[in-house]
């Protein structure tokens, strides 16, 4: 299928952002926040702060009752969003607001909310809202036939995950259906901040590129990245750095929204510093912790 090679379609905002970062000689910064956390209006302001701080791309999380792949921080954030009454329409509203910031907007969703919404309808509505595509952490290529068709029809990117345990055969299978980028899970585990980036990450990125070749989609790394130094390390070998729990934690720990916004903006700046590769990094700058 090699969907990433269908160059006749107009590039999504995501493709443009990733290409821009690459030509700047840096890794793209991709931030995650559940829509509606802690409420819809606040989540939009938080995403604006993430973008002001340097996020190129924002994954708008579709809050779900049973987030099997998430650790305690994102579980709590998603629970708050659901308790605040966040609906699929709210998710699309947050996507629109995200796209208006100039960042590329993605949706990150477990499969059932999209399945329930209607796969075709979701693809159409997401494209209308200005979204670039969807990351689907519990949808495997084998089950994705309907989604591949719907995302093709709507011109959306589709991002699947690869993991350190993926065989070469599965790396090929998965990267063949990916469009936009390939999400490399840095380690075997759930989302959440960790003291160091797992050494499995670099090897996985290399294995993925070996399979896709030079014309393959960008490879971005997520899971466990929690500060500027770690972002810099990952930026040394990946096309993008994905951070989620660190943003959620700053909101959960802030005494009020304004303090949370300041903390999120500062955190994004620190990560953006890390994403600038050593070759292009301003030697006078340092992580603003």
């Amino acid at each position, binding site marked *: 299928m090699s969907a990433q090679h269908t160059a006749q379609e107009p590039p999504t905002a995501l493709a443009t952002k990733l290409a821009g970062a690459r030509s700047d000689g840096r890794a793209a910064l991709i931030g995650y926040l559940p829509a509606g956390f802690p409420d819809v209006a606040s989540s939009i302001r938080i995403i604006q702060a993430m973008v002001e701080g340097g996020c190129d791309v924002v994954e708008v999380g579709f809050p779900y*009752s049973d987030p099997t*792949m998430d650790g305690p921080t994102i579980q709590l954030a998603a629970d708050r969003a*659901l308790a605040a009454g966040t609906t699929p329409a709210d998710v699309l509203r947050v996507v629109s607001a995200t796209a208006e910031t100039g960042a590329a907007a993605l949706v990150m969703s477990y499969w059932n909310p999209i399945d*329930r919404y209607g796969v075709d309808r979701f693809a159409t509505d997401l494209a209308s809202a200005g979204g670039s595509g969807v990351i689907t952490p*519990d949808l495997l290529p084998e089950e994705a036939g309907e989604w591949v068709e719907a995302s093709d029809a709507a011109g959306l990117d589709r991002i699947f*995950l690869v993991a350190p345990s*993926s065989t070469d055969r599965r790396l090929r299978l998965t990267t063949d259906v990916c469009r936009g980028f390939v999400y490399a*899970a840095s380690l075997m585990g759930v989302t959440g901040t960790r003291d160091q980036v797992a050494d499995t990450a670099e090897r996985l990125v290399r294995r993925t590129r070996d399979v896709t070749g030079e014309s393959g989609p960008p490879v971005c790394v997520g899971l466990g990245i929690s500060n500027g130094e770690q972002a810099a390390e990952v930026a040394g070998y990946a096309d993008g750095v994905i951070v989620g729990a660190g943003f959620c934690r700053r909101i959960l720990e802030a005494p009020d929204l304004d303090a949370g916004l300041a903390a999120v903006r500062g955190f994004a700046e620190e990560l953006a510093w890390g994403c600038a590769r050593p070759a292009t990094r301003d030697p006078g700058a340092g992580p603003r912790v």
Partner: protein
Amino acid sequence: MSTAPQPSAPADPGGHFGRYGGRFSPEALVAALDGVAEAWDKAKNDPEFQGELRQLLRDYTGRPSPLGEAPRFSAECGGARVLLKREDLNHTGSHKINNVLGQALLTRRMGKTRVIAETGAGQHGVATATACALLGLDCVIYMGEEDTRRQALNVARMRMLGAEVVPVTIGSRTLKDAINEAFRDWVANVDHTHYLLGTVAGPHPFPTMVRDLHHVIGEEARSQVLELTGRLPDAVAACVGGGSNAIGIFAAFIDDPQVGLYGFEAGGDGLDTGRHAASITGGAPGVFQGARTYVLQDSHGQTVPSHSISAGLDYPAVGPEHAALADSGRAHYVPIPDDEAMEAFRLLSRKEGIIPAIESAHALAGARRLGADLGPDAVIVVNLSGRGDKDIETAATYFGFVDEQGEQR
């Protein structure tokens, strides 16, 4: 009975039962799931493995379990001849041990040293802790905090057997959250850990492997009923939460179109109240915990909490093979409200001297409905999936056998 006979359709290689089943899981678990599927495919055709399993089922579990007459209970079922498949007499007190012993042997065969499992009422957790003690495997049981309080005695049993019991304090703090947490553990520890899933749900290969391991229930029951009555039964009744005991007994009768298959779901306070666990009757198709199946969900695809007086049926989804059997019409699924199940619980205790699990009482209540429909010439096999010792506190409260000071009446 409007049964449209369907041949028994084993799942396709991807674990699909028609449009249901499959694998909706993180990529990180695919290698492990493939490993389990491959190991099981080899083990089930390996005479040495099968011999070891058969010996354990005989000498340790006490199989075959009897199929017994229940004349005084039958009189409460429109006079139909009700036969009880006595899975309650198995070691650890329920059918759960059949699956657990098989997967525990498989764990050892795969060279893994640690087992994790979820439990709701504690039956699967106790069975798993038991098998791990027997085979010398490390054992961690995830249990919703709410359930650890409701089933304190089973928590003590599991700890006595050497298992670590981890209360799950997120989400609704019940069975589904324990399963979520077990999956999170598995993805981080998959190199040395097997997730010993306790029902016919989850991603491929669990629904087929767990069915295969419970198939012994139906195989025995089919030959026992032929021996006892000289014919096949008119109906087979089982309770359905995730659906493991039901699939186990149904599987042997699927190719017998004259045998009606009936799964009785937990109707809770009644379907119209929204407080129930009847995933097929009251849910809608969706994707949940690794498979496409019927799920209790709202219009946004969020899981709706289930409710049942029976902790073992208190689960908002059902195994995908049941979803396919329901759609094809080969099996029928009917909700039984809490009160009707508890009346059957009381009747079996008083008429036969057998205290059933409240889960199994749903099947007994269903047999009373079937008996009234089918009449006195009918033969009905009920899968008595577990014993009710664990439910005495719930039953005592329900029937008012304990006064407010906690003294026995």
